[in-house]
């Protein structure tokens, strides 16, 4: 064989995947694993690897004296944010009279950002901050690089703060500015970003390696650890700076780790991860609707009620509920809502599919008006020809989009003008029940105090626009009697009396409010409510939201006159009353990111603003953070300095093989404080209308044929 032929055959063989992607067929898929602190890393050290965007990981890492429980989220593939509790077992929470034998706890936020993602010979690069807005007990900053060579991953980096405990490099950035010479101690109140200390002071070079044993689902770890996190609290000797560990992957989402660190500590770690950016479970396809024949068309033309009844029945089979319909000579309009299908474009597409199959031949346009509750939120007018082509795979969602008209007619809903309205007998009564949990985490009495309670929600609809919502709570089990830390806040106790509410209001009326909603003008929505709004406040008020359909922004104004409820949470009130209200600005950025700024007066009378940033993936999974700054001083606010927190929502349909509307929601304020406290609004207008504008419909347009 000639050399050129041999070369050709060799190159062809190398390029032809004889084993395809055998990497994907190992029984246990090995992913980047967490460090002890929760962010993706080795053991004590971080690395430059990240989870995929839309992922969350819970990590529990136990040793003596430090035990870490953390929740890490990756709203983007280049960002990981971690909220962490540290239990310091060789230290007490406080004086015995205050907190008994409870061990010390520390809360912190960590963040890691990718600077460079290499797909060539260069390493990945990341920068990170540990414990940057807490008391600073574990504060570190780092610059880290990781390079992978098939199963081997090598990491090296530069660490400051706790990561720089081993020293070695004197103030590496001081040539840039004097500010990098010394680290400033965090305030005892915590909550400060303490940016003046970032990357300041001595630094250390750290390094580590990981090796994947894919056949066995194992990851071996070895690192040169430059940390000494116990130094500030109670010194624990470091006998050896080499840490060694092994992770076993039970699946790509669950792994267990065992390590030997500092020459004197064993550590056990368990990490559970979930990726929620996409819905990976197959869902039911649209039901097949048989097109009506000529006879049936003629009967419909003689008697429209046959069409409306068939439409109603077929839509119900898809769990879509018709609110109004109008059959004209060459147009069908229908107003629909669905409590199961989350995507409005999916509701519109399935409704149009059914309407098209049941309509007479002369109909050329199908207008679907989408409703959320009692509000008509937007309208999509389809060309019947084009959408039928789409249903038979002869057209694409993009082509259908070019022939469709998206608009808003909120002030002239079809329910006011149509010839067909389903019969609803008002008042209409509905109810649901479920078990529920309340938590108080990290208090001086005990780390976890909670209540299992039985929740009953009822709705009485007096008309399309007026409803009475109630929520009752029945105690099943709780340990709130252990709460023994009354508020010493110097400002009105609008939230910090939570212990009294939890102890005395175990069986309660959580909510009982009368609500009115309407759209008086195009894209202007109004809501008024009266009654018991939430556990701690009741009163009267309302809000207006202007949501221009074709814009990415919305503007709102809310105002409420409220009075604080009695601790028993029945019908009584306490003396404190106030007015609270906000000017609200919302903006939808590209890449599913939303931001809001609410500026106004809070429940305790302080004035300021709350900023909220969130990302809502197409699957419905939402991750968000918020922070509030008011005119209260740090001393008035107390520990934490200012209010902040995070939240996430996971649609329950990601765990099921059918569509459903529930969400597993969790929100956390690290501390329950009176400053920056807002009323919990049920059915706020933006929560109903936030994803109903032109850009939201367009971003989910591919669901139109699904």
């Amino acid at each position, binding site marked *: 064989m000639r050399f050129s032929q041999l070369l050709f055959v060799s190159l062809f063989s190398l390029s032809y995947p*004889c084993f395809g992607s*055998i990497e994907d067929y190992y029984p246990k898929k090995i992913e980047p694993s967490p460090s002890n602190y929760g962010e993706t890393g080795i053991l004590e050290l971080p690395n430059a690897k990240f989870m995929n965007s839309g992922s969350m990981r819970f990590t529990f890492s136990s040793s003596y004296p430090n035990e870490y429980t953390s929740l890490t989220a990756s709203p983007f593939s280049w960002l990981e944010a971690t909220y962490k509790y540290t239990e310091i077992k060789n230290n007490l929470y406080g004086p015995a009279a205050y907190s008994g034998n409870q061990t010390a706890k520390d809360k912190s936020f960590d963040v890691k950002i990718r600077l460079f993602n290499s797909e060539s010979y260069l390493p990945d690069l990341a920068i990170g901050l540990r414990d940057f807005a807490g008391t600073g007990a574990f504060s570190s900053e780092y610059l880290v690089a990781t390079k992978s060579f098939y199963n081997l991953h090598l990491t090296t980096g530069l660490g400051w703060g706790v990561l720089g405990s081993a020293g070695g490099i004197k103030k590496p950035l001081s040539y840039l500015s004097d500010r990098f010479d010394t680290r400033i101690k965090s305030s005892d109140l915590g909550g400060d970003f303490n940016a003046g200390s970032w990357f300041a002071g001595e630094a250390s070079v750290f390094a580590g390696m990981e090796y994947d044993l894919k056949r066995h689902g194992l990851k071996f770890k070895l690192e040169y650890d430059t940390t000494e996190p116990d130094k500030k609290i109670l010194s624990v000797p470091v006998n050896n700076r080499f840490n060694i560990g092994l992770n076993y992957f039970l699946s790509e989402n669950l792994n267990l780790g065992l390590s030997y660190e500092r020459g004197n500590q064993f550590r056990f770690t368990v990490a559970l991860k979930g990726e929620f950016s996409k819905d990976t479970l197959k869902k039911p396809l649209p039901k097949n609707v048989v097109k009506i024949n000529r006879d049936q068309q003629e009967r419909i033309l003689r008697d429209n009620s046959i069409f409306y009844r068939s439409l109603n029945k077929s839509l119900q089979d898809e769990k879509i509920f018709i609110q109004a319909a109008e059959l004209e000579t060459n147009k069908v309009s229908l107003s629909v809502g669905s409590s199961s299908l989350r995507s409005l474009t999916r509701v519109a597409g399935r409704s149009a599919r059914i309407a098209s199959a049941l309509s007479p031949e002369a109909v050329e346009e199908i207008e679907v008006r989408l409703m959320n509750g009692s509000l008509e939120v937007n309208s999509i007018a389809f060309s019947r020809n084009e959408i039928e082509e789409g249903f038979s795979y002869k057209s694409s969602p993009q082509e259908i989009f070019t022939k469709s008209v998206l608009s808003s007619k909120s002030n002239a809903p079809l329910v006011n003008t149509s010839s067909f309205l389903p019969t609803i007998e008002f008042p209409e009564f509905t109810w649901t*029940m479920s078990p529920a949990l309340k938590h108080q985490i990290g208090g001086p009495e005990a780390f976890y105090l909670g209540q*299992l309670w039985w929740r009953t929600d009822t709705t009485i609809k007096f008309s399309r626009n007026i409803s009475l919502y109630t929520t009752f709570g029945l105690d*099943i089990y709780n340990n709130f009697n252990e709460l023994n830390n009354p508020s010493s806040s110097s400002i009105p106790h609008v939230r910090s009396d939570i212990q009294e509410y939890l102890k005395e209001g175990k069986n309660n009326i959580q909510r009982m409010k009368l609500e009115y909603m309407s759209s008086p003008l195009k894209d202007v929505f109004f809501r008024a409510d009266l009654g018991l709004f939430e556990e701690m406040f009741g009163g009267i008020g309302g809000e207006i939201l202007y949501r221009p359909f074709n814009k990415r922004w919305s503007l709102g104004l809310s105002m409420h006159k409220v009075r604080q409820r009695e601790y028993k949470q029945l019908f009584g009130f306490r003396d404190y009353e106030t007015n609270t209200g906000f000017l609200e600005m919302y903006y939808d950025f590209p890449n599913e990111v939303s931001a809001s700024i609410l500026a106004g007066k809070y429940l305790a009378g302080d004035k300021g603003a709350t900023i909220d940033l969130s990302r809502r993936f197409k699957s419905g999974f939402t991750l968000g953070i918020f922070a509030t700054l008011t005119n209260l001083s740090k001393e008035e606010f107390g520990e934490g300095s200012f209010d902040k927190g995070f939240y996430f929502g996971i649609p329950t349909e990601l765990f099921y093989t059918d569509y459903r509307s529930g969400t597993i929601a969790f929100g956390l304020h690290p501390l329950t404080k009176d400053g920056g406290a807002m009323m919990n609004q049920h059915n706020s207008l933006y929560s109903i209308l936030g994803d109903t504008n032109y850009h939201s419909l367009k971003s989910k347009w591919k669901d139109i044929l699904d």
Partner: protein
Amino acid sequence: MERYFRLEIKLEKILLTSLIIFLFSCSEINKQRISPAYFEAYEAVSRYFFQTDNELLTQEVIENIPYASAILKIGRGKPGLIILEKKIDNKEYWISADGVYIVTKNGRIVQTQGLNNNLKFFKTNNDKVSLEAINYKNYLTYDQPTLFDLPIEVHAKPLGQEKVNLLKGETSLFLVEEEINNYKINWYAINRFWLDKDGYVWKSEQNISPKLPTFYMEITKPYK
């Protein structure tokens, strides 16, 4: 010690309460009102730990269906009926209600479609399930993700005759066990086939992919 017992009692109370909620809820109260997600979660969990049959699949139902049929269960999922759509060149094409295709040849699954990971091609030195002890190789090709010709070593051994409960009644069948493995990806599994004296496979437990659970198949009405 005392603190441990106090914790025990608290845990017991919580567990008991949870159990009461689930049991009481499932049997007494309208499921549609009591947050249906809890019921479905309970059913999914109980099905995972306590595998149940599909009560709707009875011999009478099978007899009333004019087509050849089989029961297929994948992993810990609920058993479902699959119908024979066609038979071409000794290959039987079965289809389920949710559009999953299973192709069998001499009782062995050789192709699938509609799953998250599908067997596309099946090459073997041994076409039929043998009643003799033999060693041979199969080559499996998959999609989602793509993998061509994964070599599988097979060690087949007959384990004699045994009484087997099929839907149609108790029958005496020959059991053949195949140990399959691929050293490179550390995949090891056992297939089982229950055959009659003519070599017809009435029941089987087959592992067709490292990324899929075991397929349990039982012929309820054979093709004639």
